[in-house]
C-alpha cells in the first residue's frame, strides 16, 4: 500500500509542480505573482470544452484554438491590467487578484449552473502499473509536461537571448529600457507565454478530475506552496516541492483518513519548508 500511495502521490505532486511553474514563469520574467493564473487555466478548459461539446470541433483543433485564445487573453490581460497604468510588481500582483474574481464570476455565470462537468476524453485511454498503482496516460502526460515545462523555463531564461532580455527587464525595467531593450514587447511575450502554459494546465486538470469554476482552488493552494518553496525562482525546486506535497497529501489521505487535512498540510509544509530554508540560508551566509 505504501508504494502505491507513493506512486499516486507522485502523479498528483507533478500537477502541483506544474501549477507552481505557471506562477514562477511570470514572476521570473516580470516580477508579477499572477494570482489569476489557475483561473485563466480553468477558463481555457471551459473554452476547449465548449468547442468540443457545443461546436463539435475535432480535439486537436479545439485545443489549438484554445491555445491561440489563451495567448490573446494573455495579451489582453497585459494591456488591461499592466500597460493601461504601469505600477510596481506588488500592485500589479494585487490587480491579478481582481482578475481572479472576475474570471471566476464569469465562469460561474456562464457554466456554473450544471457544473461539475466531465471533460470529454481527448487523450488516449490506458495506464501503466507502477508499484501496484495504475498510472493513467493522462497522469503520465502531466508528469512529462511538467518536466518539459520546467526544462523549457530553464532553457528560456538561462540559455536564450530572449531569456536574457526577460531577466534584464525583471531586474531593472528602467535600466533595461535605457539600454534599448523593448520592454513592452518582452513583457507582452511573457504574459502570452504564461497564460498559454496556464491553459495547458487547466485542460489537463479538467481531463484528470472534472471541469468546474472552482476546480483549481485546492490545486492552486498546493501549487503556490510549491512555488514559494522554490523562492518563486527555481522551477526545479518547485517541482520537487510539488511532488513532495503530493506524496504527503496522498499519504495523509490514505493513513489519516481526513480529507480536510490535505489543505492544512499544504500550509504546514510551506511553513516548515520556509523555516528550514531560512536556517540553511543563514548557515551558508555565516560560513
Amino acid at each position: 500500500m505504501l508504494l502505491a500511495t507513493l506512486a499516486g502521490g507522485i502523479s498528483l505532486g507533478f500537477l502541483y509542480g506544474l501549477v507552481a511553474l505557471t506562477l514562477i514563469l511570470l514572476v521570473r520574467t516580470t516580477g508579477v505573482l499572477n494570482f489569476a493564473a489557475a483561473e485563466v487555466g480553468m477558463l481555457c478548459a471551459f473554452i476547449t470544452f465548449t468547442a468540443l461539446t457545443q461546436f463539435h470541433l475535432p480535439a486537436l483543433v479545439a485545443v489549438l484554438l484554445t491555445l491561440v485564445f489563451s495567448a490573446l487573453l494573455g495579451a489582453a490581460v497585459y494591456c488591461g491590467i499592466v500597460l493601461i497604468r504601469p505600477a510596481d510588481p506588488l500592485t500589479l500582483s494585487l490587480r491579478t487578484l481582481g482578475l481572479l474574481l472576475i474570471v471566476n464570476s464569469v465562469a460561474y455565470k456562464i457554466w456554473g449552473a450544471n457544473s461539475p462537468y466531465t471533460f470529454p476524453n481527448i487523450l488516449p485511454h490506458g495506464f501503466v502499473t507502477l508499484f501496484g498503482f495504475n498510472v493513467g496516460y493522462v497522469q503520465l502526460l502531466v508528469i512529462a509536461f511538467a518536466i518539459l515545462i520546467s526544462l523549457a523555463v530553464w532553457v528560456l531564461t538561462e540559455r536564450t537571448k530572449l531569456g536574457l532580455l526577460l531577466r534584464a527587464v525583471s531586474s531593472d525595467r528602467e535600466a533595461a529600457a535605457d539600454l534599448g531593450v523593448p520592454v513592452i514587447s518582452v513583457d507582452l511575450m511573457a504574459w502570452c507565454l504564461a497564460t498559454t502554459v496556464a491553459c495547458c494546465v487547466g485542460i489537463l486538470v479538467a481531463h484528470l478530475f472534472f471541469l468546474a469554476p472552482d476546480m483549481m482552488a485546492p490545486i492552486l493552494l498546493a501549487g503556490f506552496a510549491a512555488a514559494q518553496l522554490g523562492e518563486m525562482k527555481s522551477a526545479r525546486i518547485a517541482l520537487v516541492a510539488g511532488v513532495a506535497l503530493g506524496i504527503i497529501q496522498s499519504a495523509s489521505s490514505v493513513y489519516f483518513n481526513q480529507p480536510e487535512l490535505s489543505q492544512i498540510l499544504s500550509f504546514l509544509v510551506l511553513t516548515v519548508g520556509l523555516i528550514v530554508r531560512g536556517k540553511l540560508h543563514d548557515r551558508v551566509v555565516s560560513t
Partner: protein
Amino acid sequence: MTVMDHIKKRPHVLAAAAMLASGLMVTAPAKAQSETGVTATSIKLGMSAGITGPIAFASRQFSSYMQKYFDKVNAAGGVNGRKIELTIIDDGGKGDVALQNAQRLLQQERVFAMTTIGTATTAGILDYLTRQKVPLLFPGAYNTELVTPTRANTFALFQPYEGQIAAVTRWVYKTKGAGSAVIVRATPPSFDLAAKSAAATVEASGGKTLATLNTSYNQPEWASIVIRLKELKPDYIIVMTTASDMGRMWKEIAQQGAAPGKGIIGISPLADQAFLDTAGGPVPDNMIYAAVPATVVPTAKEAEDARNLSPGETMGLFGLEGAASAAVIVEALRRLGPDVTRAKLTALLHDKFEPFKVPFTDTVKSSPDHLMIQSVGVATVKNGSFVAATGEFVK
C-alpha cells in the same frame, strides 16, 4: 375628572388610540380577505435551490421538472381555478444563502408555502420555516431533521439517507448474500446518521464493516481512497456522497482494478444519471445498487408521464423526484378545495391525506412522522443504464 379631561391633558393618548384603531381597521379586513400568497387566481410557492454549486445538476433537474409539472397543470386550468406560481431562487448549495432566500420569499415575495432541493441547504432553513409556521412541502432533501422530531409544518416525501441506506443494504444482503463492507462517505454531518445506519444494517444482516473512509464534496483525486479499497478487498462498498463524486470514484476503481466482490450500494444520488455521466467508461451489470426513494427509476415505463414533461431531455432521478413532489402538492391543493389556508393544508397533510398514487410513485398518505412515503425502490445498472433491480418498493 372626566375621560375628556384626561384626553385634553394628554392629546398624544388620543393620537395613539386613533392610530391603533386605524391600524386594526386596516389589518382586520385584510386577514379576512385571503391567506398569504393566495389570490382568487393564483397560489404562490417558493423554492430555494442550488442551481449553481456542488449539487447544481440535481437542483436544476428537481426544480425544472417541478416547474414543468406546474406548467402542465396550469395549462389545464390550474388547481380549483388557481394557477400555481413557483418562484425559484439560487442558493449555490449554501445553507446561509438558502436562509436569506427563504426570508426573501416569505417577506418580499409573500409565498404561501415553500419547497427546497438540497439536503444541507434545507437544514439551513428548517428552523426558520418552523418558527414562521410556513409549510415546507416535499423538499428534494433527505435530512433526518425533516421528520425527527416531527415538525407541524414540514412534510417529507423521500426517506432520509439513513432509512434509504438501511433499506437498500438490507435488500442487497438478503438477495446477494452477506459479506464485508467498506463505507465511503462525504464528511458533511448530513451523512453521520446514514454512516451509522449502514454499519448497523451490515452487522444486523450478518456482515462486517471493515472501515469507514472519509471524502470531501467534489473531491478531486480518488486514488488515495481506492488504494485503501484495494487493500481492504471488501465484498461491498457502501457509498454516500454526490452523484458526480461517486462517478469519479468508480472511474478510479475501474482504473485501479479495485471493484468490490459483490457490489456497490448507495444512497439515491448513486441512482442519478450524473453518476453514469461522470463514471466515464462502462459500469458492469449488477454492480450498482442504489436507493430510489418514493419513486420508480426514471427509465421505467411508469415514469413516462414525467419524462414527457421535457421530451428532449434525459430525466434523472432528481427530475422524477421534482415531478413527484409537484404531483403531491397539486393533489393536496386540489383536495383542499377553494378555501386554501396554511392551517388547513397542514391539517390535511398531518392525518387526513388518504392514500394517493401516481404511476411513478409508491402510495402517498399521511403518517404521524410526516414522512408520506416510507419505502424506497432499488435501481441497478444494466447495459449502461439504470433499471429497477426489483419490482417492489422495499422498507
